[in-house]
């Protein structure tokens, strides 16, 4: 062992050279598009000027962070990002698990139609979905206002109000995503050995018992892996949903604005490079901490289910 490690590294490089060659193009792309931006976060500590460029812009210490965290927006968009993220995660998991279990109980007959219908929204981008939302929510012509009118209820100027947006955004998210995760969980259930169910049936287990004592435990690995993956996303908001569905309408910001949309506007509208980099860095670090913690907790409870 010692002898072989004393052989020059050059020997191994040559021996692995062709595999390294296969690695090279992808590694270069990752280096440029993932690692260089990581070093770019030093812009968070600089006062960036386009004419001075990356190297010559002056250092400003923590001023960019201070500027952001002193404002009320910091708390607001953090609350929105985490609040929506958690709600999406919990509701999607619970609802799609429930639907998948129900699907399993139902006959196969109508299943395909339901599955296809539930999958369609997943195929569309948020941009297209925002047109569907507009058809329902448009103040003048929108269908929802017409329904409210016929019912004798007050109509709403949806894009100018704050209160309805949590409900609208959550509905839109579920509408687009529940179908797909239901399919994933349903595929997981299909993978469970049928003999368990037969044995349970012989023992006289009820539907509820088979669902809670067999299906859920057997799916626990799939559920935790998907949960860990989405916990990392709690701090990465769904930009498309929060930008296009409210139509980037200023009046809705208190309840729709998340870190991602805020950074986008800070960059594109205000051109504030320093502060938007600082917020991005804050987001990345918290996201990292969340995934690592979640994985650590899962590993403590059950090593099998952890991601790494």
């Amino acid at each position: 062992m010692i002898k072989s490690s004393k052989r020059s590294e050059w020997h191994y490089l040559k021996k692995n050279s062709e595999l390294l060659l296969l690695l090279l193009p992808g590694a270069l792309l990752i280096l440029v598009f993932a690692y260089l931006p990581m070093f770019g976060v030093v812009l968070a500590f600089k006062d960036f000027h386009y004419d001075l460029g990356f190297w010559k812009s002056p250092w400003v210490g923590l001023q960019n962070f201070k500027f952001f965290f002193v404002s009320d927006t910091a708390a607001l968009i953090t609350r929105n990002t985490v609040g929506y993220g958690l709600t999406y995660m919990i509701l999607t998991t619970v609802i799609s698990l429930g639907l998948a279990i129900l699907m399993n109980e139902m006959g196969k007959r109508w299943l395909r139609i339901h599955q296809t219908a539930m999958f369609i929204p997943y195929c569309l981008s948020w941009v297209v979905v925002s047109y569907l939302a507009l058809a329902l929510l448009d103040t003048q012509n929108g269908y929802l206002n017409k329904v409210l009118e016929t019912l004798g209820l007050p109509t709403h100027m949806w894009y100018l109000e704050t209160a309805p947006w949590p409900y609208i955004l959550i509905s839109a998210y579920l509408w687009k995503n529940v179908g797909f995760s239901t399919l994933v969980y349903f595929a997981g259930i299909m993978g469970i050995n049928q003999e368990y169910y037969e044995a349970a049936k012989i023992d006289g287990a009820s539907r509820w018992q088979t669902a809670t004592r067999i299906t859920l435990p057997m799916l626990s690995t799939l559920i935790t892996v998907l949960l860990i993956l989405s916990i990392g996303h709690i701090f990465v908001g769904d930009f498309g949903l929060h930008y296009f569905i409210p139509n980037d309408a200023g009046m809705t910001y208190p309840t729709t604005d998340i870190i991602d949309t805020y950074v986008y506007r800070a960059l594109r509208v205000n051109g504030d490079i320093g502060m938007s980099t600082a917020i991005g860095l804050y987001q990345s670090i918290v996201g990292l901490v969340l995934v690592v913690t979640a994985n650590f907790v899962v590993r403590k409870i059950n090593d099998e289910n952890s991601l790494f």
Partner: protein
Amino acid sequence: MNTSPQAVAAKSVTVRETGARKEPFSIVILLSHLLFIAITLAMIVPFILVISISFTEETAIVEHGYQFIPSDFTAKAYRYIFEAPLVLFRAYGITILTTVIGTALSLLITAMLGYVTSRRDFRYRTPASFFIYFTMLFGGGLVPSYILIKQYLHLDNTIWALILPSLVSPFYIMVMKGFLSKMPFEIIESAKIDGARELRIFFTIVIPLSTPALATLGLFLSFGFWNSWFSALLYIDNEKLIPIQLLLVRMMQKLEFLTSNSDFINQFGVDTSKFPTLSARMAMAILAGGPMVCIFPFFQKYFVKGLTVGSLKG
């Protein structure tokens, strides 16, 4: 696995039983059928609304609002769009071009990275894997990439800005690696003994053997490229390079401006009801989203497979 004759017999019996099992009328089953019918309707109904708006006469929309059954049916919106089809076709062209090039390149690179990191005898496997997967956990954020691509690589207003940044996805590499690790190593070993070199093994043995995984990933990738708008939103200003999704974004913003700004309309005497703007907008949304709705539901099985393969440790 127990493959004794009894077990096989028992299995076939249970299969027959479940096949013949007629559930007695159950309130739970009835309710879940109703629930799923409601869900299916909720998924479909917005599309019907948008389709019917796109076929409604503009004056009827202004008078009655959006309706499920057009009170004044017309295909004017589509005629209006196809009278000047260049904008739409060019946007389709850009989207198709980025989807084809992006998917092909991305598949190749994903396969290469997945293969190399799946080889247990590759000396630099651990550092290479760390190099790839660390990017899943931490990133520089939007702004540094934006400045890099715009100021230093000068990729803005080229279709490469739509392709290059999204070529490598660690998650897909993980899926690919999971698939390839299940491939028997003896195949590669025997090819090596026969004197085949690594590149040859990869292109003539590994790639053909991984067609199922490549097909699933290709589906995901083309789906992602077709539906992507974020890079276009950031990097494309040139009218000639707008992909279909960005065209929709632009149209939403412009029409909002036209229809919400009454001073503008009064001042120039533009009568918005003469132009089928409201229905044309929905017609464009249908033309942009339609291909996806028609193609991808047929592949739903493979989407699910791709995700479950990747998310389970392999």
